[in-house]
């Protein structure tokens, strides 16, 4: 029974496909999975928008949307209808073809990333040998559509926002890759299913997730910072800083195309959270040995939603960075820490079992972190801000 529940989607697909002639079965099976992904994640996106608004409201001691449907849960439907029926405005001087292609390509590229994410036991669309590389290749190609959107609008705010977004995504892609490389170093594989398999098993009821190792924990923190910047979320949301750039690269988009950008941003958030879950949080495996009976896909999606919650929480807390602070942070703090983390991971790998490697690896990472923070603070680069005119 529990086995069936765990594999319910796989069995469902088998059952549906079994009515077809054998020659069609693989193709239709893949199409069914694609359809499931294409339906599920936008639905999750719709729910997330309303939860994000409610969560942010609660953080600011407000109520949030509560008018449409029970607890405002039907708000995304109302928003969807609104954006679908809105007039689709293309600026007169815009490059119409590129302007149209940009949101479409963005969403397509983001959707491609879901193909390699294992969302449960046996639940992966393509179990690719180079899955992680594929994922990063796809996420790298979203940058170009952001640029296309900004450039084709013929609006200086759009162009500025796009240039900022592209510069930011390029800079933070380096730490993103380097923080993921530690996992590849330890598992010796780029296949995401193998990475999940490497984190299975329990010691004293606790799982073997990579986040519970010194290098994994540091890598996860770096990964979280890089993903926040990569998806243009607050506090790194200066590509769309409303106060200075109107809305960044999607200023000139309206109606359904704007909704596509919105969708793309949230889908990128889902997929990159899913990847982080897979790399550091054990993918679909249970957090305690006595909870292994819960279906694997429930674990994957609860971890996913937990990371989305952290995204929202950070958005409700942190103010936006300045461009120079952003770049300094990427190149002068996150990147060196990632490189150090790679070395620590190598050290861990070759020190063998025992408590010594725990002590040494943790000491190196914490020491480097503290020293870097102390040095930066002494030079006055970071720390409490002073205001010239206020107070």
């Amino acid at each position, binding site marked *: 029974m529990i086995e069936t529940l765990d594999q319910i989607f796989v069995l469902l697909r088998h059952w549906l496909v079994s009515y077809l002639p054998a020659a069609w079965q693989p193709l239709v099976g893949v199409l069914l999975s694609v359809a499931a992904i294409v339906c599920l994640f936008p639905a999750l996106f719709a729910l997330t928008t309303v939860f994000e608004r409610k969560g942010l409201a609660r953080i600011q001691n407000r109520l949030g949307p509560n008018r449409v449907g029970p607890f405002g849960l039907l708000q995304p439907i109302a928003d969807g209808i609104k954006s679908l029926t809105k007039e689709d405005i293309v600026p007169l001087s815009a490059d119409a073809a590129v302007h149209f292609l940009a949101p479409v390509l963005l969403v397509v590229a983001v959707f491609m990333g879901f193909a390699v994410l294992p969302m449960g036991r046996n639940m992966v669309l393509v179990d690719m040998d*180079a899955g992680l*590389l*594929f994922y990063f290749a796809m996420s790298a190609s979203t940058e*170009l559509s952001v640029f296309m959107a900004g*450039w084709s609008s013929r609006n200086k705010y759009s162009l500025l926002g796009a240039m900022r977004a592209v510069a930011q995504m*390029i800079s933070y892609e380096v730490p993103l890759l380097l923080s993921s490389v530690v996992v590849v170093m330890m598992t010796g594989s780029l296949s995401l299913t193998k990475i999940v398999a490497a984190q299975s098993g329990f010691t004293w009821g606790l799982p073997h997730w990579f986040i519970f190792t010194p290098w994994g924990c540091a890598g996860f923190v770096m990964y979280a910072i890089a993903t926040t910047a990569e998806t243009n979320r607050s506090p790194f949301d200066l590509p769309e800083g409303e106060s200075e750039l109107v809305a960044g690269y999607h200023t000139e988009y309206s109606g359904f195309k704007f909704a596509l950008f919105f969708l793309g941003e949230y889908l990128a958030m889902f997929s990159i959270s899913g990847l982080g879950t897979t790399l550091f949080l054990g993918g679909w495996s249970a957090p305690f040995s006595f909870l292994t009976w819960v279906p694997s896909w429930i674990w994957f999606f609860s971890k996913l939603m937990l990371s989305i919650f952290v995204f929202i929480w950070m958005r409700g807390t942190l103010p936006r960075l300045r461009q120079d602070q952003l770049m300094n942070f990427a190149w002068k703090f996150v990147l060196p820490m990632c490189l150090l983390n790679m070395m620590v991971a190598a050290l861990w790998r070759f020190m063998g079992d025992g408590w010594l490697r725990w002590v040494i690896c943790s000491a190196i990472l914490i020491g480097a972190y503290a020293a870097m923070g102390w040095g930066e603070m002494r030079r006055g680069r970071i720390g409490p801000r002073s205001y010239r005119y206020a107070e």
Partner: protein
Amino acid sequence: MSFVFYILAALTVAGGLAAMLLKNTVHCALALTVAFAGQALLFLNLDAQFAGFAQILVYIGAVAILVVFAILLTRGSETPRDGVFSGTWLVGLVIAAGVFAVLGWAVIQSIPVLPHETAVPAVTVLQIGNALVSRYVLPLEIVAVLLTAAMIGAVIVAMHEKEGQK
């Protein structure tokens, strides 16, 4: 299988042609990414997964963006007044056509001796990685040095000169 190849080849060649023929420089860069993507798909068609994804990651994710940045930094998106092709375009075209003729002739002449299809090589990423750090370790190190040098060089070349140093 062959059908897929023709589509991809057409995509690649069309992207390349557009990149070289269009007036607007940014359009050229975007067409170039189409050519790169087509090429990556051709790599996948040749069962070279790793090379295909590396192609997308490096060319579409980095080189195309670099080109686009360079175009915007040099105000290249404004169409020049006196045409996009140089005065000696005919000579260039003839040379290129000649090169193509020679290459094509060579390929067609060698069709009988070209190797025919073999079984799909079962190459995993693990094998590629092992090869990189065993048999090809020296080229790998040299590439690493080259990339570092190129990075430093690019930064120094593109950096603003300080006003006081002039």
